């Protein structure tokens, strides 16, 4: 069985287990066995660890797919430097994939930080598979909120508006999760045919026009006026019926709304002087060095190069916080270099806000990166510009 097929089997198994958890028929699973084996006298066996690891990978993949995150760039969850979740590293010294990177962090969130919580529940019940599942969802919620604030905000505001309309009896859930998730099908009449939802080819164009009215408030309205924003959005939702859309899937309104908001926001960002204007032009200088030139460099070589820089940064003798900033900045620059839609780096002010790095630290960090990459006469730089 190849790796993809094998993963799909595990994902299906996880989905089944999730259903079993809902119905209360779950048996003692991999997570329970692993947490049970974590004590100060002994360590879990390799088999117990691998079983837990595989189950966590499957659960994470399942959740990414369920939330339509599997097809979004990993950067939306703060995993930079990868084009997709499926992409494997060509560089043997690096983490094997974006999913591996997320998996390590997810493990820490659930099994390290919340070990006491998991152990506490094991005092009063035989299994904690469901709690791990809850923490996993909680983890992805936090990552989305932190790393994709725009997408998260649009999703949450629209979800509140739809839930409000459902609660008021203006919309009805025909199928899917009543909490309103991507696959939920909604209608103006409870007797409508849910299959009609898949025939709404013009829905995207209608939804995108909502942003004429909703932006920029949809992205940056102060908290106090959020209720008014939700009310406006709800009116747009209800106007769908007049446009001939009586049945629709939540995914088919959230996706175009989010994509259009992203595109318009990016345009605002550009007009606002998002171009590189920093003194000394440091970002541009570094970005220019790492910009892959397809005429000269094969993508694989670029991956190998960026992988070696990442390794080199790990070895630098600098304070932990500086390490953290360097990793973040490098990941961003690597993503930037591979993204054709971005032709200029943001200013230091914007970059500082985007990456959570104090602005005054950026010049020093660029200098360290410059040294790690090597001077223009150095071997690696020569490989890029050759």
């Amino acid at each position, binding site marked *: 069985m190849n790796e993809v097929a094998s993963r799909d089997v595990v994902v299906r198994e996880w989905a089944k287990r999730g259903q079993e958890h809902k119905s209360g028929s779950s048996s003692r699973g991999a997570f329970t066995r692993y947490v049970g084996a974590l004590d100060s006298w002994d360590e879990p066996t390799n088999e117990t660890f691998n079983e837990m690891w595989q189950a966590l990978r499957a659960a994470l993949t399942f959740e990414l797919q369920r939330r339509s995150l599997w097809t979004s760039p990993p950067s939306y969850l703060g995993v930079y430097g990868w084009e997709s979740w499926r992409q494997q590293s060509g560089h043997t010294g690096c983490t094997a994939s974006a999913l591996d990177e997320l998996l390590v962090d997810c493990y820490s969130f659930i*099994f*390290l930080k919340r*070990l006491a919580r998991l152990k506490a529940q094991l005092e009063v019940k035989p299994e904690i598979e469901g709690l791990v599942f809850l923490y996993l969802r909680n983890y992805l919620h936090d990552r989305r909120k932190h790393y994709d604030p725009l997408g998260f905000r649009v999703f949450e505001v629209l979800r509140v508006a739809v839930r409000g309309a459902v609660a008021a009896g203006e919309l009805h859930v025909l199928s899917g999760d009543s909490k309103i998730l991507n696959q939920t099908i909604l209608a103006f009449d409870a007797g409508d045919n849910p299959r009609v939802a898949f025939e709404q080819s013009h829905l995207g164009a209608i939804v995108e026009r909502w942003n004429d009215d909703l932006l920029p408030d949809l992205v940056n309205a102060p*908290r106090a006026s959020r209720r008014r924003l939700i009310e406006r959005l709800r009116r747009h939702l209800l106007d769908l019926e007049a446009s001939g859309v009586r049945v629709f899937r939540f995914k088919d309104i959230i996706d175009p709304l989010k994509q259009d908001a992203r595109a318009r926001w990016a345009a605002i960002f550009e007009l606002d002087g998002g171009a590189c204007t920093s003194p000394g032009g440091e970002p541009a200088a570094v970005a220019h060095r790492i910009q892959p030139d397809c005429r000269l460099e094969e993508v694989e070589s670029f991956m190998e190069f960026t992988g070696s820089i990442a390794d080199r940064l790990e070895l630098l003798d600098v304070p932990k916080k500086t390490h953290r900033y360097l990793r973040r900045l490098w990941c961003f620059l690597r993503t930037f270099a591979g993204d054709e839609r971005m032709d200029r780096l943001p200013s230091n002010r914007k970059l500082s806000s985007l990456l959570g790095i104090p602005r005054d630290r950026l010049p020093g960090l660029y200098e360290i990166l410059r040294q790690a990459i090597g001077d223009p006469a150095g071997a690696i730089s020569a490989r890029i510009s050759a």
Partner: protein
Amino acid sequence: MSPAGVRARLQQATRRAVRRYAAVQVMVEGLIDTPLEPGELFVLHATAAFDVEWAVVARHPAHSRLLLVMPADGCSLVGSSDVEIPESAPGGPLVLRCRFGQWLGDSSFETRTRVGVLDPGDVARARLAWSEIEKGDEPGPARWEADEGPDYQDWVTEILVPACMALADSEET
């Protein structure tokens, strides 16, 4: 970092987490069969289905057998009247759901399922939050926005409300 390197770092981090947990357990085991005190964390069989712990926050000033308890959990969604305990603090990371506090007789607790202790400062914050709720103080708009988040509302309706009902039911029986 290589996969082997990642695994080694995970093992190290896991050992640290287990040691931290074990240190708390030593302290908790020393408290078995001692009277319940504010600042202690329990789990209850009656609410096991809802993945919550219970934090003892205060003893009633007039009825010493009554304890103010609040559900507590590791979900990072934080509402307007919740008290968030950071990872670095004893018992953390944990969120005390102060709006769901209730007075219970101390016989409701199984002292053998005591699972942790909290920092007195965090317990004081929870008591303050409780007194504001009692007075009917409205949180500012920045805070009630958190309460309106769909995920937070789901957490409240699926976990916290049923947990409190299960606890109340268990006391009646």
